[in-house]
C-alpha cells in the first residue's frame, strides 16, 4: 500500500503567474513537476493555503507543465488563496476523483458561475477529440462570466459558445435551464455536461431525463481528506464518496442519490437544506 501516492503525492509549488479572469475570479498558474500524471477533466486537487486551510480545487487549466486553478474569493481560505502572487508557495495533492467520461457525440457544456472552472479542460479535450461542442457560460451577471473572450476566440468548426445571465446583462436573460430549453429548440445534443449551483444542476438533470439524453454533473460537498478516508463527502443513501466515486456523476447515478438538489452536510456533518 503506497500511502503517499494514495493521498495524492503532496507537493509544494510556486505561483508562476496569475490571470484575472473577471472582476473577482483569479487563475493561479503553477508548474507541477509530476504533471505527466494522467489527468482527466473534472478531477480536482486538494490545495493547501499555508496557515489557513486545505480545500478542494478543480483543475481549470491543464497545459503541462503549466497547471492552473481558478479561485473565486468567497471565504477566508479562497480569499487568501486568490490573493497569492507570483513566487508565493502553496501545497497541492491529487489528482482525485473520477472525472468526466468523454464518450459522446454532440455535447452541451453548461457552467454556472465558478462552475465553469472544471469544464474548461473538458471543452478543450472534447474539441480536440473532434466532438461538436456548445459551451453555455452562465452567471448572475455579466462580470461574473468566466473565460468568455478565450472561448469566443475558439468559435468555429464544431465549437460554439452561448452566454446567459440572470439579469440579462449579457446573452440570454434568465436562468441557465431556460437558456438550455431555447438552445434545444434549434439543435440536439446527446450529452449535457454541467457544473455550478446544485439547484441549476438538479433542474438540468430533470431536463435531461425529459429529453432522454445523458447528463454528467460535477457535485460539490464539504471535503477534508479528498482521498476516501474521512467520509465527510458521503452521499445519501448510496454512500458514494464525492472525492472518490465523484465528483462527476451520471444521470443514472443521480437518480439514486436522494440528497442531490435537496440537502448537503456542513463541516460538522449536520444536514443543511439547499
Amino acid at each position, binding site marked *: 500500500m503506497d500511502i503517499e501516492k494514495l493521498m495524492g503525492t503532496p507537493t509544494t509549488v510556486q505561483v508562476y503567474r496569475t490571470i484575472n479572469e473577471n472582476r473577482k475570479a483569479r487563475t493561479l498558474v503553477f508548474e507541477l513537476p509530476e504533471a505527466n500524471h494522467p489527468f482527466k477533466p473534472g478531477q480536482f486537487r486538494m490545495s493547501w493555503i499555508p496557515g489557513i486551510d486545505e480545500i478542494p480545487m478543480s483543475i481549470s487549466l491543464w497545459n503541462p507543465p503549466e497547471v492552473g486553478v481558478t479561485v473565486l474569493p468567497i471565504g477566508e481560505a479562497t480569499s487568501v488563496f486568490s490573493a497569492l502572487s507570483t513566487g508565493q508557495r502553496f501545497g497541492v495533492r491529487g489528482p482525485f476523483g473520477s472525472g468526466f467520461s468523454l464518450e459522446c457525440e454532440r455535447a452541451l457544456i453548461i457552467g454556472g458561475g465558478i462552475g465553469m472552472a472544471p469544464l474548461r479542460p473538458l471543452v478543450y479535450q472534447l474539441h480536440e477529440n473532434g466532438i461538436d461542442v456548445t459551451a453555455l457560460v452562465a452567471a448572475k451577471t455579466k462580470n461574473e462570466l468566466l473565460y468568455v473572450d478565450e472561448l469566443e476566440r475558439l468559435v468555429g468548426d464544431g465549437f460554439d459558445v452561448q452566454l446567459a445571465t440572470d439579469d440579462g446583462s449579457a446573452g440570454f436573460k434568465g436562468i441557465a435551464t431556460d437558456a438550455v430549453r431555447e438552445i434545444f429548440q434549434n439543435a440536439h445534443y446527446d450529452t449535457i455536461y454541467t457544473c455550478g449551483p446544485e439547484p441549476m444542476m438538479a433542474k438540468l438533470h430533470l431536463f435531461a431525463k425529459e429529453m432522454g439524453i445523458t447528463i454528467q454533473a460535477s457535485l460539490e460537498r464539504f471535503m477534508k481528506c479528498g482521498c476516501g478516508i474521512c467520509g465527510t463527502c*458521503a452521499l445519501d443513501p448510496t454512500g458514494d464518496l464525492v472525492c472518490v466515486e465523484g465528483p462527476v456523476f451520471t444521470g443514472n447515478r443521480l437518480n439514486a442519490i436522494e440528497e442531490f438538489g435537496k440537502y448537503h452536510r456542513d463541516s*460538522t*456533518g449536520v444536514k443543511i437544506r439547499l
Partner: protein
Amino acid sequence: MTGDRLKIQGYWLASGILGVTGAIMKRVGVSGADAIVTKSIGPAPRRGNPGPILATSHGGLLNAVGLTNPGIEGFRDEISTLRNSRIPVVLSIFGSTIDEITEVAMKGLELKPDAFELNLSCPHAKIGQIAHDPDLTFRYVKSVKDVVDRPVFAKITPNASDVVSVAAAAERAGADAVVAINTVRGMKIDIYQKRPVLGNKVGGFSGPPIFPIAVRCVYDLYRELSIPIIGVGGVTSWEDAIEMHLAGASAIQVGTAVLNGIDVFHHIKQGVAKYLHDEGISKISEIVGAATRS
C-alpha cells in the same frame, strides 16, 4: 448486556475512518466489515481542526481531523440508518470531562448501539491525556459503565508511558474489552514552506509503520489482562491480522488501510480463512495470544 449481535471477533472498521454518515458506514458493512465503529461523537457539533488534516511521512499517515462530529443529537439519524441494515455498530464517544462523556453515553444509549467505545486517547485534541493516567482512565470507564447496560470498550494510547497500567485500570473499572492502539503522536514539516503541514501541527501517525508498535502493545496487554483485546494499528493484510491475533487480539480493527479500498475487509477475511485451513486450525480463538506462550 445485549451482546447477541456483536461478538468480539472478526474485522471491524476502526473509529475515525469514514464513520460519519449512516450511508457510508452501511456501505463498509456490506463490503465485508463485521462491525462498524463510528467516528467519535461528543456532546455538541464540532468542526475540528483547519486543514490540512492529512499528511504523509515514511510510509504512514498523519491525521489531525480534530474530532469533527455533528454531536450526539445530530448523529441520531445516521446511526438509525446503519442499525436498519443489521450491521453491528459500536458507538465511539468522547467528552472533555467525566460528566460530559457520561452524558454523551446516556444520550447514546437511546440510539441503541451494540457497544460503546470510549475514545480516551485522541492524540490531536485536548482529551488526549485521559489514557495517560490509570486513575483518570478508571474514573471515565467506571462512570460510563455505571449508566449503560451494554459492553464498554476502552481505547488506549501507545503514547502513555505505562500502557499496561492504564489498560489494567480500565479492566478494574469494568471495561468489557480494551482497544489498542490509538495513533502515535507525530509531525510532518514541509521543507520548502518551512512549517508543519497539519493545520493542528501535531497529529496521529497510523498505517503500516506503527504495526510493530501495536503488536508489542497487544502482546504486553494479553499477558496482563483477562478481558479481550481488540487490536488496531497498521493492519493492512491477512498476514498482519494473523500476527496480531497471535499477539493476543480477539478482534481486529482496520483504519488507514481503507485508503486502498473498502474491500480490505473482504481480502483479510479470505486470507485468514485460507491460512487457518492450510495450518489445520479450526478457529481463530485457538491462535489468539498463542505467541505469548513461548
